[in-house]
């Protein structure tokens, strides 16, 4: 699905709240968003120059580990000609100008930050540069063409002035519509591995996360929510909780009952003394099994939506095929579990609200709290801290609305902080999925026809009001693989299981790439061919796919024998305009899969910060590997059964494989890199496990039980 479709789609569904603030406010905070000193000039929304020469570049995307705190300023600095070491970074407030054009709202997600910002931020930097030059030209009465801008100084004709000295004049210059941009070959910042600007603060313990926010007179809240998501409070008895030391108040909010105390620990301890009677609602009937049964039912009888255009004539080609091969793949629920539990700080005063905390969705936070409190979005000031991980969980707004409602109820600044158990049992989970694929193959085993059907839940219906029976563009991700097959058809069935679902790192690439790449391996096995060669033969006119496949295979030593007791699996995908192949090398020890090495080849076009690209690939693989061999969420009687990192196990140091990365140098338009590797590690590992054991596991995670 193209980006244009997503954008149009989010706009047309009214996903985007109204009433945006246009004013430019520099957010405050120590070590997080910087505060520029001196008088502040704002030549445009991305660049603030103070007359003391402090230059602040804004990141309209939240820093959740993916490196935008550095890569967004890099794009501006390239054209502004300033030294990255001498600038400050601020995270932008909510504002229409900061809308992510690929998603239609001020959202950090979908591996879009660089793709959305690549032109826009370079233009912003160039505009300010030209405005500074114009101001200097006017001041000195010389032609602009005789001046140059370098390292924060405009000079020429024997004169020079710093950007700060020219800032006031520059901000009065007209904004050039078409500033001159550098040719990619002249880049001095973009494409060069650059040290992250947030590393020192995150190494000395001074980076400010949401959990670290403090306001004068602030109190703490811990919220008891219904063990069945969506359940409502019928009645509650707070007498015991209120008698506990430090408790200030106990208030009911939409999501449950909040205990407010002078310290977090006292609020949390007192919360354990609450008695709440819940109306559990329809959710109490749900179990993982009943939900998967519902998906199967929908796959058989639900409305079929077509993904893309069918190619050729699948029905006829199937009839003419030498053999038809079918397989189905399922994936379970997954939790995001970022390491910083959900939290937000709210301060309600005189009909105005201050919100400070970690969010991926500034505009949504503003819109949802405004609606919940019955105020205008303009009455809300929002400051974004560093995020202790996001992975899609912080696109949701539940914990933000809770903070706002509690602050209003008690009339004090409040920090809401969830426990890990709250987080694990009240997530918006990656939905379950069923993928059915069938292929007709010729006598040599090559596919002549392929039929693909995905059945899963639409996050977009819940989160952005996508109308029923409409194609959810996110659910089509990686559904159509790169292989050249003469007759293909791809279908989607949307089924709401009743349990809330969320966007989870790499979203539907996870389901669709697992199915497609496992199935491609099954076809290779059926044909008695090497899975790498088999794929390669289907990529004759797909150079970017073929290239990364070959690079990964070569770097992994595909043609050589792995060590005894080990085997390799391969997988290939395009996602977020990034072409990627992975080779995983595994063994099975005591029935458990051990991944020793992962080789990744990626072609994401023009890179901004190659070391961050590597970091994101490393990160995505570790994240995806957890879901491939360890974790899942299960539901019984409407209750999520995993509560902490003992039952929801993630990859740890001793299980982290060696990761080798090959990056393609390219000037193609930039692709996203925060997510795709997450989706590919599953099939790469499953294919290696098949090679090693002969057992085809058609679900993840591949646990001891699955292998038994």
């Amino acid at each position, binding site marked *: 699905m193209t980006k244009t479709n997503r954008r149009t789609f989010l706009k047309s569904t009214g996903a985007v709240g109204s009433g945006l603030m246009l004013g430019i406010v520099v957010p405050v905070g120590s070590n997080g968003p910087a505060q520029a000193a001196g008088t502040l000039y704002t030549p445009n929304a991305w660049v603030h120059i103070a007359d003391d020469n402090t230059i602040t570049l804004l990141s309209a995307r939240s820093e959740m580990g993916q490196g935008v705190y550095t890569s967004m300023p890099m794009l501006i600095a390239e054209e502004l000609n300033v030294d990255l070491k001498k600038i400050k970074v601020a995270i932008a407030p909510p504002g229409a100008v900061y809308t992510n054009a690929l998603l239609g709202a001020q959202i950090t997600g979908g591996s879009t930050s660089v793709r959305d910002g690549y032109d826009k931020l370079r233009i912003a930097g160039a505009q300010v540069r030209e405005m500074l030059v114009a101001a200097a030209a006017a001041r000195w009465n010389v032609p602009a063409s005789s001046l140059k801008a370098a390292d924060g100084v405009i000079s020429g004709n024997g004169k020079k002035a710093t950007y700060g000295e020219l800032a006031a004049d520059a901000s009065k210059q007209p904004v050039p519509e078409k500033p001159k941009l550098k040719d990619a070959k002249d880049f001095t910042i973009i494409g060069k591995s650059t040290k992250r600007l947030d590393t020192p603060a995150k190494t000395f313990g001074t980076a400010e996360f949401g959990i670290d926010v403090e306001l004068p007179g602030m109190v703490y809240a811990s919220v008891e929510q219904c063990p069945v998501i969506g359940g409502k409070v019928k009645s509650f008895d707070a007498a015991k909780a209120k008698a506990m030391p430090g408790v200030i108040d106990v208030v009911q909010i939409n999501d449950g009952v909040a205990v407010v105390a002078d310290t977090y620990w006292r609020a949390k301890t007192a919360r354990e003394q609450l008695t709440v009677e819940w109306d559990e609602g329809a959710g109490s009937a749900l179990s993982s099994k009943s939900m998967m049964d519902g998906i199967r039912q929908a796959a058989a009888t639900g409305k079929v939506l077509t993904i893309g255009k069918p190619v050729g004539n699948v029905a006829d080609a199937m009839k003419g095929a030498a053999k038809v091969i079918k397989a189905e793949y399922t994936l379970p629920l997954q939790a995001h579990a970022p390491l910083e539990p959900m939290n937000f700080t709210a301060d309600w005063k005189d009909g105005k609200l201050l919100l400070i905390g970690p969010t991926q969705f500034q505009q949504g936070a503003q819109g949802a709290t405004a609606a919940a409190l019955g105020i205008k979005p303009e009455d809300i000031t929002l400051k974004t801290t560093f995020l202790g*991980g996001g992975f899609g969980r912080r696109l949701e707004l539940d914990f933000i609305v809770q903070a706002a409602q509690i602050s209003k109820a008690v009339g004090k600044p409040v920090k809401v902080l969830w426990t890990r158990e709250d987080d694990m049992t009240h997530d918006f989970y990656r939905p379950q999925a069923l993928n059915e694929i069938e292929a007709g193959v010729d006598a040599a085993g090559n596919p002549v026809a392929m039929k693909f059907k995905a059945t899963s839940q639409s996050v977009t219906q819940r989160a952005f009001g996508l109308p029923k029976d409409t194609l959810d563009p996110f659910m089509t991700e990686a559904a159509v693989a790169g292989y050249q097959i003469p007759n293909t058809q791809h279908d989607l069935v949307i089924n709401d299981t009743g349990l809330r679902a969320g966007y989870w790192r790499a979203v539907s690439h996870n389901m669709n790439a697992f199915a497609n790449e496992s199935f491609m391996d099954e076809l290779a096995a059926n044909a008695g061919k090497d899975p790498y060669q088999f794929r390669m033969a289907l990529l004759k006119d797909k150079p970017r796919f073929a290239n990364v496949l070959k690079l990964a295979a070569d770097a992994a030593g595909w043609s050589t024998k792995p060590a005894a007791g080990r085997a390799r699996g391969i997988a290939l995908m395009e996602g977020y305009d990034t072409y990627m192949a992975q080779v995983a090398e595994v063994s099975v020890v005591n029935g458990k899969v051990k991944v020793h090495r992962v080789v990744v080849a990626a072609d994401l076009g023009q890179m901004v910060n190659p070391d961050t690209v590597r970091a994101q690939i490393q990160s995505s693989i570790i994240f995806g590997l957890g879901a491939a061999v360890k974790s899942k969420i299960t539901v019984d009687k409407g209750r999520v059964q995993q509560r902490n990192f003992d039952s929801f196990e993630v990859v740890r140091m001793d299980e982290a494989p060696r990761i080798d990365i090959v990056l393609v140098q390219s000037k193609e338009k930039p692709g996203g890199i925060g997510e795709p590797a997450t989706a590919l590690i599953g099939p790469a590992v499953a294919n290696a496990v098949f090679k090693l054991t002969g057992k085809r596991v058609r679900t993840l995670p591949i646990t001891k039980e699955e292998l038994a």
Partner: protein
Amino acid sequence: MTTFVLNGKSVTAKADKDTPLLWVIRDEIGLKGTKFGCGAALCGACTVQVNGQPIRSCITAVSDVAGKQVTTVESLGTPSKPHPLQAAWIKHDVPQCGYCQSGQLMAAQALLAANKNPSDKDIDAAMSGNICRCGTYGRIRAAIKDAAETIRNA
């Protein structure tokens, strides 16, 4: 009231005696570098050292550290005088979201204090209690080895 030594200074905490040390350090004393991730000794985000041993402050009652030496990430080093681990963290650009890193550093510092030449297995053993949801393990491993070398050569 519990008195202990925090980063070399004597402090007296007012918090109820069974309050976890984590919340005393963060909310009463105001040192925010130490983080909360699980509250159940499962993630290591809250790792501090008590008399040089890494412990999970989320399950350690403040009364248990009475009279003891507690150190947190804030004691490790400063931008102008970084600990060798911090210098290596910066060199390898280890942090992503950064949330786990204080705990990782305190666990790594305890490892290097006891073992100046840790093998991969030693690193696995010392560091596997610390979750990094962003998957920075490879860089943590490289940075620990780098810092160990700096310390050996010092």
